[in-house]
């Protein structure tokens, strides 16, 4: 589903965020991207979502070479990816329902089908009762779940999440990760960046460790066996 081949990313200010990164993430896999702040986790996710372009190397997403995707084609490409942000990026002047519906309003979806999918997504994150509320009237954990509902509403094959539990307490964090696991169970590929090792240790998933822009370790779950 995702393939990085010898990827470098150097920002215009000269900082080298990624150095010779190579890895594969298979369809249906769920993996954590760990490492300290500034290790390049966000940059790596941005390369997948085409928010940034690699300086060198190849990024393939769903067997598509992202360097061949021209600017005009980016929106179409992004519709196949669900993105979850640490700061939710919800629109505070729209209801929970409208926030989740946002990726669906882009396509020409029938109103009834749109409502059905939004409610299904809200149901999955347990917020069906709150669809008429506005984001600011919800707790941080609830807001994050709205963000997750929005990411999965269009039923993407791939979901990437950047520190989705960054602002949550341990219980809510674990709950959020369990939610991701449930999506994984139905076939969604997930790549989740998180520096919360304590949390990740409770979950049995592959983890890629980034340090100083390089992948320094690639463990397969708790078994800690090197691939």
């Amino acid at each position, binding site marked *: 589903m995702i393939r990085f081949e010898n990827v470098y990313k150097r920002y215009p200010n000269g900082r080298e965020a990624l150095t010779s990164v190579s890895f594969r993430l298979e369809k249906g896999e769920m993996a954590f991207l760990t490492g300290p702040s500034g290790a390049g986790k966000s940059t790596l996710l941005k390369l997948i979502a085409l928010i940034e372009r690699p300086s060198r190397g190849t990024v393939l997403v769903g067997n598509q070479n992202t360097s061949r995707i021209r600017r*005009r084609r980016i929106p179409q*490409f992004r519709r196949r990816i669900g993105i979850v942000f640490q700061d939710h990026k919800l629109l505070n002047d729209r209801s929970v329902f409208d926030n989740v519906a*946002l990726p669906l309003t882009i396509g020409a979806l029938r*109103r009834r089908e749109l409502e059905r999918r939004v409610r299904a997504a809200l149901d999955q994150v347990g917020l069906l009762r709150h669809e008429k509320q506005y984001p600011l009237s919800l707790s941080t954990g609830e807001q994050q779940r709205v963000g997750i509902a929005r990411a999965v509403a*269009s039923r993407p094959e791939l979901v990437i999440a950047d520190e989705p539990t960054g602002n949550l307490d341990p219980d809510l964090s674990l709950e959020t990760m369990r939610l991701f696991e449930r999506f994984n169970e139905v076939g969604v590929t997930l790549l989740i960046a998180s520096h919360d090792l304590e949390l990740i240790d409770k979950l049995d998933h592959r983890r890629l460790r980034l340090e100083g822009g390089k992948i320094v370790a690639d463990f397969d779950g708790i078994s800690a066996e090197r691939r």
Partner: protein
Amino acid sequence: MIGRYLSLHVENLREAVARMLRQPFGSMMTIAVIALALALPAGLRVTVNNAQALSGSWEGAIDFTVYLDRDVDEERAAELALEVEARDDVGQAVLITRSEALEEFRSYSGFGDALDALAENPLPHALVVRPAASSLADVEALASDLDALEETDLVQIDTAWVERLRSILELVRRIVDIATILLALAVVMVIGNTIRLEINNRRTEIEVVKLVGGSDGFIRRPFLYLGLCYGLAGGMLAAITIALSLALISAPARSLAQLYGSTYSLVGLSLGQTLALLIGGAFLGWGGAGVAAARHLRAIEPS
């Protein structure tokens, strides 16, 4: 599929109106500025149209005076009046005898006593001729015919001022054309600026929509509709302003016209012109928003 697509546009339109209503004061200011910029050239155009219609109606009604030789007697003068009036290109010919002229002069000029001092009436008989012809050239031809008559001393005709007025109006019309272009540009810029601010205010929203895969067209459309609504509302307000202004000046204009013996009444915007104003406003709004969107939306990228 097409129904869904249409309903997206209706939704865009509805949202644009809702957005304008959410900030009524700011929206009203923008609309007022646009209306002003549209009403000015449209109002000037109405004024020029009226002046032109008015000068057109004068053109055919240029009376002129044929002064006869002093040795023509009253009998011959009366005959002459009938002869002239019989011409096809003459509507009316009225004889003013020298004694009538003197009376008139006496009562209007205030030189009554001085006239009494004269031994005899110095004034000639005169014919006041109202041409039937409508074009200036025909009137001039008639005047030279009359000038050629044996009994004519002098034909006094003043078509020059009509021509001057016409060329002044033509000049004014050109100036109005230029003003129209400049003010249309101003409307584009006002709306462009409003939309630029709106884009800046909705930066986060634009970023998020780009992140979930909204195309440039999808992101641009609400702003285009907003521009369209501003332009349309400005056009409406401009049309109302012109109608109200005309209503305010139509009564004094009519009494002025009556003083000149005319029944002319002011002509406002026709239905076609009103529509042109509305469509023009909407078009300029759409254009202004398009310019702003092209310039500023691209610059907003999620990071």
